[in-house]
């Protein structure tokens, strides 16, 4: 008789809102995937940044004989250690180099017979980075053919690309938000036209515009929340399935994945939970403002 969920306006008979939860569900689903992608990419870029910051490699071609090769390595390491800004320099053992090429060449004994390049792992003080041009010249003098590989420079373009993708995902989120607002505006306007007679009766009985607007807003809140939950649940299922797929897509074991790991942290899941709440909130306030603006234009 006097339920809290009672509406004076017969929304249940309004066909124009029947599809709204599904539209909101689709938008929240897409927003969920975009947000998860953005969060995962941000975390991955952060990890790469931390890992690459302060790491360099000096690569020397295979030595003609072991004695000359050892001398060359000593000389290069000495040059590196004498360079301001270099914190540590040490040759990578041959086994470690063989492990690095294992994914491409395999782990056969025959690989052990190959002439592999020699690698020197260099750690630098990121606060006082060395003069790379000067260092390259010194290395060329000490060992012709020595190549300084600053991973940081090599990956800068990749970082830029990653940031661009992040910005794109943020723009997609914004567009989905705008689409949600516009969908609610059009649905609410259709509802105003459909329920014009009841609205007129409510006005005659002395209802304020805000009384009528709150009914539309409550209706939109319920539909937005229902659609938001559906979209959120679908997004969670999709992300969990993608996470499983990424695990199985690892050809060379867990250390070498063709597809990056799709595992969200707890705080990242918490951010995703905000999506249906945001959808419901956007629906409520958009409907409230739309009705109040429309009614304010009446005589």
């Amino acid at each position, binding site marked *: 008789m006097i339920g809290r969920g009672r509406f*004076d306006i017969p929304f249940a008979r309004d066909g124009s809102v029947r599809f709204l939860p599904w539209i909101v569900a689709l938008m929240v689903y897409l927003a969920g995937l975009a947000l998860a992608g953005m969060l995962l990419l941000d975390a991955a870029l952060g990890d790469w940044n931390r890992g690459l910051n302060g790491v360099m490699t000096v690569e020397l071609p295979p030595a003609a004989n072991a004695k000359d090769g050892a001398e060359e390595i000593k000389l290069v390491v000495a040059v590196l250690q004498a360079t301001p800004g270099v914190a540590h320099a040490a040759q990578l053992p041959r086994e470690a180099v063989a492990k690095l090429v294992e994914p491409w060449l395999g782990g056969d004994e025959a690989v052990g017979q190959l002439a592999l390049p020699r690698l020197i792992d260099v750690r630098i003080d990121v606060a006082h980075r060395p003069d790379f041009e000067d260092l390259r010249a010194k290395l060329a003098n000490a060992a012709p053919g020595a190549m300084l590989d600053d991973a940081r420079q090599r990956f800068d373009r990749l970082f830029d690309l990653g940031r661009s993708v992040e910005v794109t995902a943020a723009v997609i989120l914004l567009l989905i938000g705008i689409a949600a607002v516009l969908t609610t505006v059009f649905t609410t306007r259709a509802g105003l036209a459909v329920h014009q007679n009841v609205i007129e009766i409510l006005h005659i009985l002395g209802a304020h515009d805000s*009384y009528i607007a709150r009914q539309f807003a409550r209706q939109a809140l319920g539909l937005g929340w229902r659609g938001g939950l559906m979209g959120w649940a679908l997004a969670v299922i999709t992300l969990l399935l993608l996470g499983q797929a990424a695990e199985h897509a690892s050809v060379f074991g867990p250390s070498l994945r063709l597809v990056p790991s799709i595992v969200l942290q707890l705080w990242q899941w918490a951010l995703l939970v905000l999506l249906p709440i945001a959808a419901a909130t956007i629906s409520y306030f958009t409907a409230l403002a739309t009705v109040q603006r429309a009614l304010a234009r009446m*005589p």
Partner: protein
Amino acid sequence: MVAAMIRFENVGMRYGTGPEVLRDIDMRLDAGSFHFLTGPSGAGKSSLLKLIYMSERPSRGLVALFERDVSSMPRGELPPLRRRIGVIFQDFRLINHLSTFDNVALPLRVAGQSEDKIKANVTELLTWVGLADKIQARPPTLSGGQQQRVAIARAVIGKPSVILADEPTGNVDDEMAVRLLRLLEEMNRLGTTVIVATHNHYLAQRMGQPRLHLDGGKLSLFKPEAPDES
């Protein structure tokens, strides 16, 4: 001097850019008065009532209700005045998806009254109009007479100062029409200002009340004839 409940001064009204449906209306209805509003179909009776219950605004002139000019009053100030007016429509205009109880409770709900108070008042009134057993029924399941009683209950639940009835006898049989008019007279005796719009001026003459007659958008006042003493 009795306060003017409703006052029109040189009022004209048109819909959009169409011709004036009401022209140069001047009238003053005192508190506690009873008037019939007669005129042929299309004479502007409903438009005049709309001006009184503030569903429309005049194109020109002044409309004052309860001694306040409502012609150009901001929208936000109209609802408290509308709550002082009860309207009974010819087609009842009940909300079909709401129960009898909720339809009658609407004026109290929009006024923000507590549910406890609403429940007590609405139940009492529905019992008084003989619809206690129809409290949960939806309007489409009620007869015409029952729907009219719900519409009357909705109009009077807020204890309005003015009752407007637009062709209230149009959709009911003669017996029901007379009972309704007697009820409106009773409410008038209790101090409520009543206006009954009807195209049946014989009915208005028979009731012996003053008659406002609209024709071609112009208003005339006819006072009841004095009883023949010969």
